[in-house]
């Protein structure tokens, strides 16, 4: 059994296999930003309260400041940069929640936005899109993230808008 101070790790980030050699105390949030150059993930409180750094680990939202980079070795991570999808014509289309944030003016300074987008996108993707979203569901989707600009009203509006878009798409 080895006890290490530094390790080389392999993480599939947004579908791309990446490798980095990191001190074992490196937080996943810092590994993404500093070692892999993906600065879309924002680091706010750095102790799990604000939700800005939320990424998807094996598809589920987690605080990347509360996971060590070495713990993500061999796993897949999706950051805000990975929420958009290919449009099969050489371009990218935004996730419905990203479109809805723009549509509903759900951000002001934008610092907390990556955490909201990853959390809500995973929540919306996991639910049955044909069912109308409830107010309780919306509150559960946004409840773990802090925003100091918007007062949340437009973020919740964006959630409902995105759910409606996905419902319309599912109905087609």
């Amino acid at each position, binding site marked *: *059994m*080895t*006890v*290490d*101070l530094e*390790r080389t790790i392999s993480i599939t980030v947004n579908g791309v296999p990446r490798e980095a050699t990191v*001190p*074992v*105390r490196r*937080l996943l949030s*810092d590994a993404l930003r500093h070692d892999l150059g993906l600065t879309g993930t924002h680091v706010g409180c*750095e*102790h*799990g309260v604000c*939700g800005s750094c*939320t990424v998807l*680990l094996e598809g*589920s*939202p*987690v*605080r990347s*400041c*509360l*996971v*060590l980079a*070495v*713990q993500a070795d061999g796993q897949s991570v999706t950051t805000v940069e990975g929420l958009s999808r290919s449009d099969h014509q050489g371009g990218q289309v935004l996730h419905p929640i990203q479109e809805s944030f723009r549509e509903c003016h759900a951000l002001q300074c934008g610092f907390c936005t990556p955490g909201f987008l990853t*959390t809500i996108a995973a*929540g919306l993707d996991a639910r049955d899109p044909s069912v109308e979203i409830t107010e309780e569901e919306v*509150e*559960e989707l946004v*409840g*773990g*993230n802090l925003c100091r600009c918007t007062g949340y009203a437009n973020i919740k509006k964006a959630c409902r808008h995105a759910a409606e878009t996905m419902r319309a798409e599912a109905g087609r």
Partner: protein
Amino acid sequence: MKPAPFAYADPTTVEEALDVLTAEGEGAKVLAGGQSLLPLLSMRLAAPTTLVDINRLPGLDRIEAGPNGVRVGALVRHAALLASAEAAAVQPLLGRATANVAHPAIRNRGTTVGSIAHADPSGEMTSVLALTDGSVTVATPGGRSTIGWRDLFVGPLETSVHGPAVVLDAFFPALPARSGTAFAEVARRKGDYAVCGAGVVVTVDDDLRVTAARAAYLSVGLVPEVHDLSGAVAGKPVDSADWAAAGALASGLVDPDGDLHASADYRRLLVATLTERTLADAGAEAVARALEAS
């Protein structure tokens, strides 16, 4: 801030984990979900020399629900316990309390057993372990042992588990027949640390009269305690039981501290209110379950 430097090992067997913990000595700490430990490291409130990550140990991610109770492995995330209909059928408090544990992103990573081993007096699952009269299984180099909740919790963030040891699982006994439960808490933001929380169990007899009412609280004491409130309501039919009297009794039994978020008196008021509310719900559920069984 960032965690102070430490060494890291991720063993793949319990024996290997115990070997590393033994070799690294007192500065070694077990890492499971990390949702309480990593904030402590980042705030430099803890600085272990070695982290022994148990996430690669096999077989600890199982929930075993049987007629006697629910055994929750050390790597079961709160989200998995919350989603387990089998666990909720045997002991409904598990799902009800887990729904109040932090936010979904924390529940996806944090473990139920880890939060018990962390022994935070504001944690939900420590109180549920107490209220259900549960226990944990601990592996040490000397062998495996079972520790009941009364012997486990020593003080805030302190358990009787010392030295090289890994808590392998927690066992929550099944809800007895003709009983109902409820769980509620008050927090500044849903999912944040509770200013006060209450879990209760009410049992009725065949005539639907209350035979027992017990409660455990969050954030009102240094260690989880179970309070017997039967004196205020025993013998009364559920629909005319004076739950407020039981709430008043409870507020006299607890000894909360005041802090930045709430004074001791306010916490006592919350204990009374939450007790009354949860007992009424649990009483109604006990009646429903008694009628269902008869």
